[in-house]
């Protein structure tokens, strides 16, 4: 009986958390549809999500693309198929690695910062103060972050894709002896519109997840510094898992055949 009680309690808690998250997301989306939209806040959030993430996302893409080219070269040379390097690099980067690694890096940087900021505002009663000053905390805090996340991540991922392919190009032409012109030609030949579209859709979804997890965990944090610390961790971990899961779902839907 003890066992059943534990299973029941865990299940109930999981559904309660899921329900709370759904209500939170629904409320945020409801505000998204209703003006006024806080442009100044959105721009500020876009800067902190997008612009300041460029170095870390760029470096991640560069190193990953380079390592990828090296690995594919080694693997494909066993089948005398070295010419596939450019094709595999561009497909792997644009379809999967650009958005996923970009999303994870930004999640680590931004979800945690959002959760810490909003969480601190919660435990120091700043969110209550917003309400008493007739300002809806969803409109002021959550909606600008969600919009900024959805708009900014695709831009970041475009940059990540380009730098990632460039990383592969560097290794292929500098150390593996590929002809630069041929390499780029193959890259362009294998890059399809669907790949780019799926990449951007993934990025927008990941941006939403990052901002939602950061805001949600911050908003519902409690219990002082420890609570804010926990909210930060939860935001990053849940954003990671949701990003990887959403990626799987989108990949299956888009590339089913």
């Amino acid at each position, binding site marked *: 009986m003890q066992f059943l009680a534990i299973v029941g309690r865990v299940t109930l808690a999981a559904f309660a958390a899921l329900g709370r998250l759904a209500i939170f997301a629904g409320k945020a989306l409801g505000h998204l549809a209703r003006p006024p939209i806080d442009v100044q806040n959105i721009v500020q959030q876009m800067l902190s999500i997008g612009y300041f993430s460029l170095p870390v996302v760029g470096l991640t893409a560069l190193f990953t693309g380079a390592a990828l080219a090296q690995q594919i070269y080694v693997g494909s040379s066993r089948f005398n198929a070295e010419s596939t390097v450019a094709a595999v690099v561009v497909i792997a980067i644009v379809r999967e690695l650009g958005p996923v690694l970009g999303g994870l890096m930004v999640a680590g940087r931004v979800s945690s910062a959002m959760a810490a900021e909003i969480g*601190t*505002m919660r435990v*120091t*009663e*700043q969110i*209550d*103060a917003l*309400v*008493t*000053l*007739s*300002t809806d905390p969803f409109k*002021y805090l959550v909606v600008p972050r969600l919009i900024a996340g959805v708009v900014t991540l695709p831009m970041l991922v475009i940059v990540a894709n380009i730098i990632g392919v460039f990383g592969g190009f560097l290794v292929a032409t500098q150390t593996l002896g590929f002809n630069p012109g041929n390499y780029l030609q193959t890259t362009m030949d294998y890059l399809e519109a669907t790949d780019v579209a799926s990449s951007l859709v993934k990025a927008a979804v990941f941006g939403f997840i990052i901002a939602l997890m950061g805001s949600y965990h911050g908003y519902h944090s409690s219990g002082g510094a420890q609570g804010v610390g926990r909210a930060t961790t939860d935001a990053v971990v849940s954003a990671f898992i949701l990003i990887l899961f959403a990626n799987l779902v989108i990949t299956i839907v888009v590339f089913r055949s």
Partner: protein
Amino acid sequence: MSAPAKIALKGLAKRFGQKVVLDGVDLEVAEGESLVVIGGSGTGKSVLLKCIIGLLRPEAGEVRIDGQETRRMSAAERKAQMAKFGMLFQGAALFDSLPVWENVAFGLLRAQRMKKRAAREIAIEKLSRVGLDAAVAELYPAELSGGMKKRVGLARAIAAEPEIIFFDEPTTGLDPIMSDVINNLIVECVRDLGATTITITHDMVSARKIAHNIAMLHDGRIIWHGPKEAIDRSGNPYVDQFIHGRAEGPIKMAVRAG
């Protein structure tokens, strides 16, 4: 029949999980009255304020502001209602990311959509009202001392000239002199604005200075309510123990929370 009370509570109840915090609070505050609610730590004083202002949703009971029941209000009515309120939070709850003047002018800029220049002028005027000069306006909350934060919080609470102001432990954490400064500011601001106020505190010096009437909250109920002059002869052992700060008496302090 006289005009309806500015704030009237009836059977207000609030619990968190198993823990009952408010257990049927009845209270009336007349227009222009300054009520101080005293009570030990953790007796639900803050919860009471948050239920009245609408930050928390009570499980049962009525909250009437100007005779209007708040629980059945639409979102728009609720918003109009909120414009009547100002609140000074315990830790001042200033927005860290904004300079002092934008904190003070926050409600004017956001809710009333006032132009920046005009809002700034009002902010500086309110700051001088609480004894802070214009140089403070450009500072950020992290650069202020505890007493200054409270003053800025007070300036923010009165910036929109609300009809009702709540003070959540205004003197907690301040030295006795700064406490007196804050008490005086509260008395002056309230007199000048003609506002109705509820202050919660466990500082009896502050209570005697600010209050017209005092109510004592214990075990989720109001156990005593009367003019401040009467508190020394309340005949209520709970009140006596509290105002004289004795460890022995009918109030048993729970050592552990919860």
